[in-house]
């Protein structure tokens, strides 16, 4: 299984650390809503099919990635940074892609 890191390109799955269900929303740190915290810590969507999940490229650039992967086929259809604003600018893949286009 290869994951195409936006920084580093296609890399073997052993370079990545799995962090599971990417649909969960972490409550506000000040929140005292125990039910929301319990749900965040323990409850998971576990679909057979496309699954939104978080991986970290821990053996590479260490970026946190939001991946859409099919749990029936292991096929990956999307890899983006977990934060929309993260990775843009000089070091981002978009910028690098543009530079390559010009050459």
């Amino acid at each position, binding site marked *: 299984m290869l994951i195409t890191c936006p920084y580093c390109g296609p890399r073997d799955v052993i370079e990545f650390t799995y962090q599971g269900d990417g649909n969960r929303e972490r409550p506000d740190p000040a929140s005292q809503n125990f039910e929301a915290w*319990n749900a965040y810590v323990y409850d998971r969507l576990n679909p057979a099919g496309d699954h939104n999940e978080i991986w970290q490229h821990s053996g590479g650039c260490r970026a946190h990635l939001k991946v859409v992967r099919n749990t029936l086929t292991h096929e990956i259809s999307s890899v983006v940074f977990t934060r929309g604003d993260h990775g843009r600018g000089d070091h981002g893949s978009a910028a690098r892609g543009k530079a390559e286009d010009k050459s």
Partner: protein
Amino acid sequence: MMAEYSAFSLLANALKGNRDWKPAWRKPDPKASYDVIIIGGGGHGLATAYYLAKEHGITNVAVLEKGWLGSGNVGRNTTAVRSNYLLPANTRFYEHSMKLWENLSHELNYNVMFSQRGCLNLAHTPAQFDDYARRGNAMRHLGVDAELMTPAQIKRLIPALDISDSARFPVVGGLMQRRAGTARHDAVAWGYARGADRRGVDIIENCEVTGFLRDGDRITGVSTSRGDIRAKKVAVAVAGSTGRVMQLAGIDTMPIESHVLQAFVTESLKPFIDTVVTFGMGHFYMSQSDKGGLIYGGDIDGYNSYAQRGNLPVVDEVMSEMLALFPGLARVRMLRSWGGVCDMSMDGSPIITAGPLPGMYLNCGWCYGGFKATPASGWCFAWTIAKDQPHDLNAPFTLDRFHRGLVIDDKGQGANPRLH
């Protein structure tokens, strides 16, 4: 009930050309309604049906299996049976299972080839050995057998093991449970199936559940690929498919992730190892089947999967660990590998409970230790279904324990299923 299989019946049928054997279970069409429907014709579902009929006299029962009987994890595991846990809830439950295993062939009149060849956990650091001593003491405190072994004793038991100081991870000792061992997993499914069938349970294969029949919140039956079937009680025992089946009931999130676990078998060898051995510096376990193949496995792949197949990094890791323990196996050829889908729970312990909806009963969260639990899982689940309350042995294994701060985390890994 007279034993169907005996020396006498073998001889009598042999003289008649073996033409008169009855099939081990019938192939009935589903009836319109049952007292109890069990979804999932694996080991746990079949054992549940057997104990419902035998212990509680509830025989108007159907077991619905989407494929063929025993096509899931009951035929995919590495067959180890043990009860060497640390926490009392797990120890008591798995020890009850062990006691049922010890009489299972006799109970079922079916040879499940339960072989108490022992299970040895290897320790590779003094701290790990201390930890094993603690677990062994916890086991003995609850009446389970456990003994510490020295490297010299281990070398006598497993001559092929590299226990030299130059081993990648030298062995400093081990924790042995002598009553642990292996069983023939297919026979467990077939034995429970025949026992349930002979008591009147309908085992319905190629019957996939596609939805639940509801009356408000209450579950009143299931829609299947073979039509609607009504039932007073619907029990779910579908292991790795728990997420999918619960979504059919409108329950989207569960304290479960489905992961793929791979297993491997080598070509047949002469007798090489007569116990189950586990590696302490990684995740590796191995035993030898009666046919001679070495059966072994390691960690789950570590990401959600329903694919029943894994990837190469885990294959590489498992082989490396095998060679760290047994350098002499370097030239042995691997015959087959396969994958099974495991219902990894958030604390590594199972769930056997009434609910979460009225009319529904749930058995899941077996991680990759479900095979050894088969008898006790069925026994406790049948009790829970028959009496609408858990037995003392499965009372701790609730679904709401995660939200109530009552997790049973034997490995102390936290809510991270890939680490259990």
